[in-house]
């Protein structure tokens, strides 16, 4: 049986990794929404036409903070996997991230998360746990 301090440590790690993923994804989504359709930023022809969208993305401070959160999420995940089994960490973090993303998208990105999207989010949360078993 797990000791109560071990349970607290395990779930603190899981919630922390999920929170970094949610922050990163929401910040990147906010940055992309502000930039608008990237195709409209393309100028010229060939591979050079992608320089405009790449420059616009890399000069967005919101995107850079989001990318930093995703990088921290990667290292936090590595640290967590050194403490917790992958069989618990992967489904728990995946599931929490999808539910947290839907809540954060509703609260901070003001997305219209209607009944259909809540249903999809709950199916994803349960589905990810079952697939990762």
């Amino acid at each position, binding site marked *: 049986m797990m000791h109560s301090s071990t349970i607290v440590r395990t779930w603190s790690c899981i919630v922390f990794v999920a929170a970094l993923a949610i922050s990163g994804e929401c910040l990147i989504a906010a940055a992309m929404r502000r930039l608008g359709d990237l195709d409209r930023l393309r100028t010229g022809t060939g591979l050079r036409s992608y320089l405009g969208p790449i420059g616009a993305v890399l000069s967005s401070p919101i995107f850079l903070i989001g990318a930093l959160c995703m990088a921290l999420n990667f290292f936090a995940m590595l640290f967590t996997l050194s403490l917790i089994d992958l069989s618990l960490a992967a489904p728990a973090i995946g599931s929490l991230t999808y539910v947290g993303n839907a809540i954060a998208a509703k609260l901070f990105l003001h997305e219209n998360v209607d009944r259909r999207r809540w249903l999809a989010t709950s199916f994803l949360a349960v*589905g990810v746990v079952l697939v990762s078993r």
Partner: protein
Amino acid sequence: MTHRLKASQYAILICVMLTASVGDTLLSRGMAQVGPVDLHHLGLLWHALFNPFVDFGIILLIFFFASYMTALSWADLTFVMPATAFGYVVVALLSRFWLHEHLSVYRWIGILLITSAVGFVANSPSRTEHPGLDVMDSNTGL
């Protein structure tokens, strides 16, 4: 919400679904060939860059990130989310039909749930309109 997607935008979402899962699978196969990396053998990471599975995996993950950000530039995060989750289904089906691994009933139910979630949002409007907010955002220069 009024936006409907063009065929090219559905193609981007299919890229999001496939590149992440296939890229992760290739990285996993490549790193299994390279061997375990720890703090005392960090040089192995340099060695891993010469593994074709690792190289192709990294290229696919770069494509994933590019297509994911492109999708977020014209669709809501909650609309794109099921596409990223569908990667779990792709990995499970690859392991069943390519690697001939056994899939438990739980995993088949999980596949059914994720696929249903994709179906729920796939035919719905892709983006929430915020006319006031979008005008404000375009003036901030961010």
